[in-house]
């Protein structure tokens, strides 16, 4: 009897302590881990990084209650094991509603000067608002956050600790932005070869790296290390689609079908490829570049032209691209859902 009472008390205490540990959080200021490769990114003055805000953002990121039908969280389309993509051609949101774009990776957004594939959103905070309210994504209500979230004492406590105010959209977008800023992937084989000199390329990787930088291929002109993007917009000769790309934001027809250069980091883990997920495999992407794209338009980038790579060269290029996978990042438990 006594033993049972003690056991019950122990379980009660343990569960209380567990709940408390999820709600209590550390409001000391935080910095982004740069691995000595990049400088600290610029952080908005009205959203300084702190550990509690990052944890709050992590909790919100995986909370399906933010979507209209309670089915979809940010983490539904941005899954850690796939470098925060979802393996789908285009994302599916609440009520299984299909969007028209491929879910992009969320790694290294802290250094991105603008967001969305046409670059129309200038801050990560505002980018976070888009999927929450989008009719193709979470379909959240602009009128208010769900009651179940507003009345969640844990959210209230974390919000007060991190932002000194109750949970609202102001807090939600800032916490989500902070969590996403904390998602850094700079610990790949490539990084250990190039920046830390602790590993070496295999011969195939070395040849692939040479092709990547060659004056004929010019891959590194747009996919500039270490982020492997130049954040510019190009028409790379994909087949016509209804998606206007950069023109949607700029109104200039010369920007039609131009999309922001995506990073190549973790490219191995993020199929299918391109803005609408039209290509399933990485070797097919290389083949597409090798034939100079599938469409010729006036605004198409001059860098996209037939390359005449041999089968061996294509394999080498693929081997190099595989060096950009950061296995430590995609298994980082701090970016998984908080355990309940």
């Amino acid at each position, binding site marked *: 009897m006594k033993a049972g009472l003690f056991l019950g008390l122990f379980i009660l205490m343990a569960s209380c302590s567990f709940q408390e540990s999820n709600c209590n959080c550390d409001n000391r200021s935080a910095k982004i881990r740069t691995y000595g490769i990049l400088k600290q990114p610029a952080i908005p003055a009205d959203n300084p990084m702190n550990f509690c805000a990052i944890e709050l953002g992590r909790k919100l990121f995986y909370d399906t209650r933010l979507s209209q039908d309670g089915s979809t969280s940010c983490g539904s389309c941005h899954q850690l094991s796939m470098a925060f993509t979802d393996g789908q051609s285009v994302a599916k949101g609440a009520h299984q509603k299909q969007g028209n774009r491929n879910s992009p990776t969320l790694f290294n957004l802290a250094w991105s000067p603008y967001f*969305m594939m*046409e670059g*129309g*959103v*200038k*801050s990560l*905070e*505002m980018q976070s*608002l*888009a999927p*929450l*309210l*989008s009719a193709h994504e979470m379909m959240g209500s*602009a*009128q*208010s956050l769900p009651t179940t979230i507003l009345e969640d004492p844990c959210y209230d406590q974390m919000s007060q600790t991190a932002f000194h105010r109750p949970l*609202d*959209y*102001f807090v*939600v*977008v*800032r916490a989500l932005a902070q969590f996403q800023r904390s998602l850094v992937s700079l610990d790949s084989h490539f990084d250990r070869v190039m920046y830390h000199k602790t590993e070496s390329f295999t011969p195939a990787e070395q040849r692939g790296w040479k092709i990547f930088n060659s004056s004929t291929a010019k891959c590194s002109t747009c996919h500039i290390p270490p982020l492997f993007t130049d954040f510019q917009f190009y028409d790379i000769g994909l087949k016509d689609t209804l998606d*206007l790309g950069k*023109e*949607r*934001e700029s*109104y200039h027809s010369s920007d039609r079908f131009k999309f922001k250069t995506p990073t190549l980091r973790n490219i191995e883990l993020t199929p299918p490829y391109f803005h609408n997920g039209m290509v399933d495999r990485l070797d097919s992407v290389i083949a597409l570049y090798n034939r100079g794209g599938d469409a010729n338009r006036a605004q198409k980038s001059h860098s996209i032209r037939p390359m005449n790579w041999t089968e061996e060269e294509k394999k080498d290029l693929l081997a190099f691209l595989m060096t950009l996978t950061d296995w430590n990042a995609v298994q980082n438990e701090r970016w998984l859902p908080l355990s309940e």
Partner: protein
Amino acid sequence: MNQLKNIFGLLGLAIFLSQCSACKEPNGPDSNTKSNYIIHWITQYQNQDLIQGQTYRDAFQRRVLFEDLRGYISQVELIDNQDSSIVLKDIALVNWFADPTISIEGRPATIKAIRFSLGVPAQLNTNVDPTTYANSHPLSVAGSAGLFWTWNTGYIFYQLNGKCELTGSENLPMIDPIAYHCGDDTLYRTITLNVPEVTVAAGGAQQFNILFDAQKCFWNDTDTMDFAVDYLTHTTGNLPLAIRAMDLYQSAFSIP
């Protein structure tokens, strides 16, 4: 003790002088008394009341209906006979089905015109963060009620959603969509409407009526929307149609 008396004396004199200075303001003794100004938009489609979902006729006598007709108005002000303005409202989100009214107190004046703008001023429309506004503010996430473009950070100045029947049939359902979502700094428009001069005394009230004829959103003397081709603009992708839609929208306002 004498020093203390002097200090109190000077303080008293200062208060007396400051009160007298207020009495001598150019507008005289009525300057602190306000007048009540009301601006009321009468919304119609030609000469009928504008009602959501009701059937009207387009320029080609085809059936058409409105599902949503909203927009931002900003810098609503009265112009007096000295060309000075009395600002009544900095920004509001207006549902045109609701016969909107703005009522506010302002200084007494002789009013000769009403001025307001359609849309959100550039300084409030560029790189904005709607989460920084209180929920009751028309530019907040909640207050903008879907008129904030999250993919491009800016507001929809004018949104018209409707349906029409393109074959001219009187029996087929209206299923052809119309969507004009206009919003860009270049589409911001200012309207000045002259009114017969009226002097509004302190403590007095004056209502000004403005007619919003929604028919002119579809055609006026210089342009006509043909919904077979002119049915969709999100501004981007079809800026020329957004400009035409905004021009027509602007022409819908007049003094009755």
